[in-house]
């Protein structure tokens, strides 16, 4: 069975990759990608069942934080039922999205801003080294250079240092990091294509 799944995965991967370079394989590639999209949709349902099963277990075993699990399941069921009855594009469903989900995510973003500021303050205590100092000075210069002030940009910092850091130093560094990530992704993909790594069952 393991060999069978590996053969299917390697064949599908090779056909999809080949479709980018050989026009004759393009229809097969499209077909396989469409199947993948459908399977990804089904995976959402499986993911929701997984979420329900994890939180039901927590409630049944009276684990720590089970009240939140109960709240999550109630919200899930109520939202699901309303969406089934009213359809997802109904005004009430849109209000649920824009009135609950978006503000909650915005609140988390606000919380994150505070925790990142606190982390920056603690950085030198956590790791007193040259790169930490460079990191903090760069962050401070960029914040000062981007600040909206009544008299406009701060001379030199806003007009020269900030653009130079973001468009020369940071851009060069970012490209270097992204090239490294791309090479890593390429070799990881090749390992999966060869069947050396099999995240789809069996070892």
């Amino acid at each position, binding site marked *: 069975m393991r060999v069978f799944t590996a053969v299917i995965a390697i064949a599908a991967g090779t056909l999809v990759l080949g479709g*980018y*370079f050989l026009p004759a394989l393009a229809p097969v590639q499209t077909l396989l990608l469409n199947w*993948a*999209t459908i*399977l*990804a949709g089904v*995976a*959402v*349902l*499986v*993911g*929701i069942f*997984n*979420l329900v*099963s*994890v939180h039901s*277990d927590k409630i049944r075993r009276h*684990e*720590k*934080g089970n009240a*939140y699990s109960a709240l999550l399941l109630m919200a899930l069921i109520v939202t699901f039922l309303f969406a089934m009855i009213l359809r997802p594009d109904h005004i009430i469903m849109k209000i649920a999205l824009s009135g609950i989900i978006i503000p*909650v*995510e915005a609140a*988390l*973003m606000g919380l*994150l801003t505070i*925790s*990142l500021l606190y*982390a*920056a303050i603690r*950085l030198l205590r*956590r*790791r007193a080294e040259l790169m930490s100092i460079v990191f903090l000075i760069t962050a401070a210069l960029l914040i000062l250079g981007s600040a909206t002030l009544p008299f406009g940009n701060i001379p030199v910092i806003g007009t020269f240092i900030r653009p130079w850091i973001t468009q020369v130093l940071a851009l060069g560094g*970012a490209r*270097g*990091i*992204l*090239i*490294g*990530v791309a*090479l*890593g*992704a*390429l*070799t*990881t*993909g*090749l*390992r*999966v*294509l*060869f069947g*050396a*790594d*099999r*995240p*789809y*069952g*069996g*070892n």
Partner: protein
Amino acid sequence: MNELIVILVSAFLLFAITLWKRKSPANLREIPALTRLYRTLGLSIEDGTRLHVSLGNGSLLDARGGSALAGLALLRHIAERTSVSDKPSVASAGDPTLGLLTQDTLQAGYQAAGVQELYVPTSGRVTGLSPFGYAAGAMSILQNENISANIIIGHFGPEAGLLIEASDRENMVLIGASDELSGQAVLFANTQDALIGEELFAAGAYLGAGASHIASLTLQDILRWFLILALLGGAAAKLIGVI
């Protein structure tokens, strides 16, 4: 066609280097975060505490799949090593397809350790479908399930800060790597030893996942040198007016 040539040459080199690395021992430079990860695995088994592997919300259907696959390769190794622990590892994902593969990978780890009967399907979880929703769900695992170390590896943006904050509050060992620049910046500022750039893809090789992982690192180095030479050659050619 240039891309096809690069892929074919890379595939050939990976195959050849894998065969070579099976015979000769690997000589890897020290990466402090991965050394700490190796030690943490052993300690968590002795302590009877749990590891949490956060795989992020990288979808396997787009360009972020590479980091997700690297995270799964690490998870496979961690699952095998910690499956016999009193408190086996838990993994969370923010993408449904990644969630399915998380469960499959955990199960494969248990199979490899010969303790398949100990595998619990709910140890691989989908905690949310948006980046912040995922982080909020994973924070709940960190706070409530006797976790001693949080391993963040995959596609993470700034929301990684929330996971780091939750780990700090519980005094956990934290190891982090992301393929996203904003996520890497957050991890660098918040963790003791963050993995930067391609170091994310090196975890398997450092934990002894096999010759193909070590061969990947060698191949990355070869390709990196080619790119450096091409960039320098291009700059020189532009300078002297050839191109």
